[in-house]
């Protein structure tokens, strides 16, 4: 009996000590960690917009976030967008509701600050105050609208779909005509040397310059990449002066409707990527048009 008490006490104390150490380190590092993650995502976004060491990020670049929610009221569904609006010359966030038929349903201001809106829990509390039961809301996805002054630079779409082994997370940049300008693989779990080649330039850059019309009927073909196209796609391996502006334009024009060449030994991954990106572009183009119409017709003072 004495032994049992000693063991229990010993284990409890060691667990407590371990817990205190872990908790202490967690509280000490949490802020820095979050900041790093934020910088990481922002760095990816700005590099996708074409800013780097030689083209620094301009001061008037603004990234507006848009969050899509699905609202459900006793079976009738509608789409809710949490988006930034101008109110008293300041940016605040509002919930815009649009019916499935594209009709504008309502606008309600949310009590949430610009820093907190990126956190899903903060948005939930703010939405709870506006969306009254029996109506429920579920988070669907988000979009980032990048603007430089009054000019729309790109839509950035984070998205995920199934690959060969598990989920592939990507970020897509579209211009105002819904042509893909950049694709970045954020996270994947494919086999190195096979499916993981999707993050290599010669595969992911194939999606660049594909317009919405091309994306709608794009296929995966089991043919080797043409040599000149491959040289062009591997941008980090360009020799100085190898690609003049005229040459780049020629190649871009020649291959802008070219199908996606599958990776050797990873046809399933290549197909999944193409299907996933096709779906993302098509759905986004459809949704943003409806939203734009609804916002314009009702003169919502959106910030973007």
């Amino acid at each position: 009996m004495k032994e049992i008490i000693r063991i229990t006490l010993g284990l409890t104390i060691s667990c407590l000590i371990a817990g205190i150490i872990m908790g202490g380190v967690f509280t000490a590092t949490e802020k820095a960690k979050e900041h790093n993650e934020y910088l990481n995502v922002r760095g990816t976004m700005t590099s996708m917009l074409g800013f780097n060491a030689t083209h620094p990020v301009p001061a008037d670049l603004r990234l507006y976030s848009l969050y899509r929610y699905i609202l459900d009221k006793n079976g009738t569904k509608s789409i809710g967008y949490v988006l930034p609006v101008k109110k008293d010359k300041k940016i605040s966030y509002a919930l815009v509701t649009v019916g499935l038929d594209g009709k504008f349903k309502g606008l309600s201001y949310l009590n949430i600050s610009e820093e907190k809106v990126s956190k899903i829990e903060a948005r939930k509390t703010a939405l709870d105050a506006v969306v009254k039961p029996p109506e429920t809301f579920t988070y669907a996805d988000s979009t980032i609208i990048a603007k430089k002054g009054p000019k729309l630079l790109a839509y950035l779409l984070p998205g995920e779909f199934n690959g060969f082994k598990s989920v592939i997370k990507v970020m897509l940049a579209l211009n105002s005509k819904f042509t893909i300008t950049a694709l970045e693989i954020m996270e994947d779990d494919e086999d190195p040397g096979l499916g993981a080649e999707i993050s290599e330039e010669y595969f992911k850059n194939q999606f660049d310059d594909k317009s919405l019309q091309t994306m709608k009927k794009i296929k995966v073909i089991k043919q080797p990449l043409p040599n000149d196209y491959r040289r062009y796609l591997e941008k980090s391996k360009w020799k100085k002066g190898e690609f003049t502006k005229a040459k780049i334009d020629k190649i871009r024009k020649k291959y802008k409707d070219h199908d996606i060449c599958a990776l050797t030994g990873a046809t399933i991954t290549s197909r999944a990527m193409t299907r996933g990106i096709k779906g993302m572009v098509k759905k986004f183009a459809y949704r943003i048009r409806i939203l734009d119409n609804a916002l314009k017709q009702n003169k919502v003072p959106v910030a973007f």
Partner: protein
Amino acid sequence: MPATTKTNFQLVINGILKENPIFRLALSMCPAVGISTTMMNGLMLGIAVLFVQVFSSCTISLVKDYIHPRIRIPTYTLVIATWVTVIDLTLAALAPVAYKQMGIFIKLIVAFAIITMRLEVFACKNTLWPSFWDGVGMGGGFLFGMLTLGFVRELLGAGQLFGYDVLGFRPLLFFALPVAGFFCVGFLMAAFNYIEIVYNKRKKAVNR
């Protein structure tokens, strides 16, 4: 086993060659087979294991007198988990670039057999300094094993080393797949055993 009589240098060499965790003790084979597809992966996991092994060995050797023998295994796991968490969080906060590459590997280490085994066999019977050097040796041995595996698999599977093209073509794509890990470990194990046999024979011949 009584306290060790080996010198610090012998302890380190022992971990890297004579009792190499992957090729001689055949412990922690899951990561060795699963992650060693490239040299960079091997290096990252090796460094992470080295740190956790050294820190855990030191901690256990310091508190060994207070651990009740019946609950020593849970205590070891607790110590390893604590160090893994601390290293994980600190790296995420202070070295985001390194964390981006190493993050997924660090969380795996809690379940590594090699660390628990070293605590049980060595650290709980020795004082701080021998335990420290034993940790360095074992971690170093693991690092060495992972690098060797990564070297063979990346070179034959992708024709690259540390992500740089060295061959310009891919000799055997098969080596990039998980199955090839078993073959590599098997062949390297055989090579290690062969070297030891030859070495022992020579030693005997010299002594005679």
